[in-house]
């Protein structure tokens, strides 16, 4: 149990660092592209890369927000009830978050379909012909790398969300946190 809470805290630190780097990169990419275009040599790939980096930091940042219990929520009910019931509600909500993380893990499992990939000896064409799932073969329009590298943020998100939500749940059950309402 403690190890999950500790792991969550460690992931949080990594996520914060990644978030800073990614936001800075997006800004830099846009500025460099503006400058390059002013010099008549537009960076063909800059926009698509910036968009993909934003998608990645959106999910990394969302995960961090779950860890910090900073989510948008309707608190009508939990504001109106006693401290004890509020804790119960919070435990229920954390269970919902765990459930969502598990569903997402399942959905990404179906999407990445690693077992079929392994059964095909990691031969992408064989995998594709069996499943008509082109996840490993799709190429970005302008960056020239496979899209799957960016898709990987989804299983990562499912995993970190699971850890963070489980950690929050453990803390709620142990009554370690001063609850109030999730902000």
């Amino acid at each position, binding site marked *: 149990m403690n190890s999950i809470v500790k792991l969550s805290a460690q992931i949080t630190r990594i996520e914060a660092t990644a978030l800073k780097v990614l936001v800075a990169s997006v800004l830099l990419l846009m500025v460099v592209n503006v400058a390059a*275009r002013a010099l*008549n*040599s*537009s960076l*063909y790939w800059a*926009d*698509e890369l910036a968009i993909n980096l934003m998608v990645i930091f959106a999910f990394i940042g969302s995960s961090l927000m779950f860890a910090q219990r900073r989510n948008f929520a309707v608190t009508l009910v939990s504001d109106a009830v006693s401290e004890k019931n509020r804790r119960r509600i919070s435990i229920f909500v954390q269970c919902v978050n765990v459930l969502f993380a598990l569903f997402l893990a399942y959905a990404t499992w179906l999407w990445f379909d690693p077992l079929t990939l392994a059964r095909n000896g990691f031969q992408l064409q064989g995998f594709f*012909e069996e499943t*008509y*799932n*082109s*996840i490993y*073969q*799709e*190429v970005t*329009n*302008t960056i020239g790398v496979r*899209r799957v590298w960016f898709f990987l943020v989804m299983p990562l998100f499912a995993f970190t969300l699971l850890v963070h939500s489980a950690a929050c749940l453990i803390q709620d059950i142990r009554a370690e946190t001063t609850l109030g309402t999730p902000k």
Partner: protein
Amino acid sequence: QSAKTLRIGTITPGSHFWTQTMDRVGTSLAEKSGGMFKTQVFPSGQLGNEATMIQQIQAGGLEMGFLTVAEFSNRIDDMGALFAPYLVPDVTHASKLLTGATATGMLDQFTSLGMKGLGFGLGGMRHLISRDEAQTSADLSGRKYRITPFAALRDFYELMGVAPTPVPLPGLFDALANGQVDGADIDLELAWKLKLYDQAPNLKTTSQMMFPVVAVVSGRYWAALSDEEKMMLSETVSEQIDWLFSQYIEFEPKWLDDLKGTGMNVTTAEPAFFGDTLSEWAGIWEPKAPSIIGLREEAAALM
């Protein structure tokens, strides 16, 4: 027999000929099948962009799409053949080539993507529109042109020393107005409907390329249809694609007149305008897209 839901996704808005073609497919199918096919058309990328729609078709969640061949050329190199410069001179010939033996044979390649290709349609021929006039392609060197981002087209422009710049279509008006791009690879329909004539008053009608679209059905869905149903669906799509061709054949001259009526500087260019670019492009793409040879032969026979 139970009713068959046929959901069709397009990226174009409801007013566009491509979406209308699919609306007509729905109406016609409902009549022919006595309501057996229940068609729903989802325009404007409501179900996602083209890449997302392709993924849904492959997964079997979406039954059909009317999608740009440009998007597919990312996945099947040979589709680049349909963008070979100067395959056909105009939409009339394009419609014949796209329904001819070679193109029809190319439809089989969609099987490799888990789809059944039902038929190619088209948007208008591609031309050049720009802020400043260009006498030869050498004048284009160092300019920034808006293109649809896919490899076959990007190579064509890069060979001329143009910086291909992917601007989303709705941003094109402003991008041309403020000089963020110097010009665009465009068809007459867009030049007219997006009102690009004031911002980019020089139209060079080059007709250098087609811009084909393809009707594809999910492979799983196709496999579950009876032979009779397959025939009905495939014939209906062909009929309505013929209607689509007729629209472009009718409207292209009108759009050109409309554009001329705005006082635009409209000039026509011969293939020589592009100089060595044509042979250099062929050098890159003939090995990647072997259907180019067959398409050229068939196109020559049409002339």
